[in-house]
């Protein structure tokens, strides 16, 4: 990475940089604690660098300090700039940047709950992950918090935002929903049918996954990453493996890179088909839903034939893949070519149907500026004009060698989100075909015996969008593993997408954003 950013920070703010450390495409700048806000603000607004994650780490054993990392993506240069601050254990607080960068909101509240570091000046300092029955001085990700700790329940209250006025009433939905889905609470304030305000509340099934990572061996951690968000298993496993491989300085064999690419695109295919089926269901277009579900099932059966698992699990490992998919090339190509025709037939019918158009056009609009402010990722972001795709901006696996388009639309409604997914289905089919045409013989795995102490980012474009892992290793164990699932960014978008819409359209808006509870409630 060019040192343009570092130089310019030095020029603008003087001697605020305490330490500079470059490792591959990641530059870590440790800055004075009180200058973090202005530097982040400068990078975000002046260089237009998206803030892709904020996370803390408890490194008190080493130097008595907590660390907070602000990760900025420099898309054009395939690089990341990480602003780091030290927080002394004796004064566990830092200045909030949420009023400058709205997407910092949940990250800062997460740090507050998990590490007990207070974001001073945060516009909404309520708890996010630890519920009101959680004692006030217990911070699960601190190193002195034992994973086996059982805490007493305490009394407490959570206060929702209120909309008041004549004829305004509230509709509480969830956390237990009709249907076999995960829990989440939605509180609507409505006047008649139109929605005036929606407040969501999540983290009912927080599983402490980041703590679990610190307590298992690295080879087992791959399987844990696969289970962070069940239908984005490959994207999570690959992101985790890439972080470890980066730390080890290992290059995986070409055949492993191509296999990973094929698996990642098969995952995108069945997810997008499932999402399109869900949207069709929610607009009562039963014919389309049945066919899209049939196509999804065909891809899942293909997954099973290729990998032995419908959800493509158990394939990735540190250093490559565990199973050779050789001998199945013909089967994949044959299935994909029939899927291509079948799917395009279906999409023509779906988009030509007036009853579908009537329900999805202009519904659930997520305006471009709001999507940008919240850092909405994946197909939901691309349907709101955000031209970002990790596969193109930070190429990994075999994507650098393959040609593909990144569909971007601007209208930000359910229609746009459906079309982006539909377009991406063709891109995925083409990517798999290209990957198979370049599939060369060779090893599928490189053996990595020792994993040195170090840290690195691993990233993929999951079907739902940018997925980020930051892993720090020490003595062949995981010291810290920060997982940033795309849904952690996208959930807040629903509060804006539903405004001015009517309550009966909530299910399609929700479906079109395709949000994961499990990936969010980690």
């Amino acid at each position: 990475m060019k040192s343009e950013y570092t130089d310019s920070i030095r020029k603008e703010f003087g001697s605020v940089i305490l330490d500079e450390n470059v490792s591959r495409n990641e530059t870590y700048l440790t800055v004075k604690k009180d200058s973090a806000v202005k530097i982040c603000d400068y990078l975000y607004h002046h260089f237009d660098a998206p803030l892709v994650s904020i996370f803390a780490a408890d490194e008190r054993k080493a130097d008595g300090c907590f660390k907070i990392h602000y990760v900025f993506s420099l898309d054009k240069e395939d690089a990341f700039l990480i602003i780091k601050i030290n927080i002394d254990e004796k004064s566990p607080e830092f200045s909030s940047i949420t009023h400058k960068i709205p997407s910092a909101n949940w990250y800062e509240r997460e740090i507050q709950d998990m590490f007990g570091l207070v974001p001073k000046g945060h516009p909404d300092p309520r708890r996010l992950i630890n519920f009101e029955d959680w004692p006030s001085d217990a911070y699960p990700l601190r190193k002195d918090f034992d994973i086996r700790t059982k805490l007493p329940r305490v009394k407490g209250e959570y206060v929702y935002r209120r909309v008041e006025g004549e004829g305004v009433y509230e509709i509480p939905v969830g956390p237990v929903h009709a249907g076999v889905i995960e829990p989440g609470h939605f509180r609507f304030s409505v006047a008649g049918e139109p929605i005036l305000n929606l407040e969501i509340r999540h983290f009912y099934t927080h599983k402490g996954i980041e703590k679990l990572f610190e307590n298992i061996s690295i080879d087992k951690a791959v399987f844990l990453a696969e289970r962070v968000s069940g239908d984005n298993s490959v994207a999570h496993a690959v992101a985790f493996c890439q972080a470890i491989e980066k730390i080890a300085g290992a290059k995986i064999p070409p055949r492993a890179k191509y296999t990973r690419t094929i698996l990642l695109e098969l995952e995108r295919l069945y997810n997008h088909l499932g999402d399109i089926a869900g949207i069709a269901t929610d607009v009562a277009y039963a014919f389309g839903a049945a066919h899209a579900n049939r196509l999804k099932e065909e891809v899942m059966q293909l997954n099973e034939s290729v990998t032995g698992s419908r959800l493509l699990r158990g394939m990735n490992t540190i250093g490559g893949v565990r199973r050779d998919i050789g001998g199945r090339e013909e089967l994949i190509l044959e299935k994909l070519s029939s899927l291509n025709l079948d799917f395009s037939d279906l999409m023509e019918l779906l988009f030509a149907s007036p009853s579908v158009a009537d329900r999805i056009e202009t519904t659930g609009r997520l305006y471009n500026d709001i999507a940008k402010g919240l850092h909405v990722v994946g197909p939901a972001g691309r349907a709101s004009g955000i031209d970002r795709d990790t596969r193109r901006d930070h190429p990994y696996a075999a994507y650098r060698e393959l040609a593909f388009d990144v569909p971007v639309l601007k209208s930000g409604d359910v229609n746009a989100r459906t079309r982006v997914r539909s377009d991406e289905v063709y891109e995925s089919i083409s990517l798999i075909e290209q990957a198979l045409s370049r599939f060369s013989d060779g090893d599928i795995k490189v053996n990595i015996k020792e994993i040195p102490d170090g840290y690195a980012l691993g990233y993929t474009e999951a079907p739902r969008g940018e997925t980020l892992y930051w892993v720090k290793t020490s003595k062949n164990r995981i010291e810290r593993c920060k997982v940033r699932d795309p849904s952690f960014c996208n959930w807040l978008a629903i509060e804006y997408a539903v405004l001015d819409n009517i309550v009966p359209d909530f299910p399609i808006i929700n479906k079109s954003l395709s949000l994961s509870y499990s990936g969010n409630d980690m």
Partner: protein
Amino acid sequence: MFEILRKTLKTGTVTTQYPNRPETAPEGFRGKPELFPEKCTYCGECVKACPPGVIWLNEDNDGKSLALSYCGCIFCGRCEEVCPSDAVKLTREYELASKTKDDLVTIIRRKI
């Protein structure tokens, strides 16, 4: 409307007769792991490798036993991978529903 009808007729019936007619999982399917008592040396490699920790090795006066619960098994096949004597294999068996958790435990023993 005509186009919808055409698509429906072209697709035909895709549902199968399962469970009235059994369906075989494809080759390489990651199903129920099976233990082979005649090959097992009770070395405990699978116990160490199992990510969810659902394989246990027990030793008492009578001998050694190895227990595997399908209840928490994630069908990753790590046990198969690390076994030095091919004593565990993932099979194509997938109908694992049972009424109790105990029914999901399989135990092999060797007397001293």
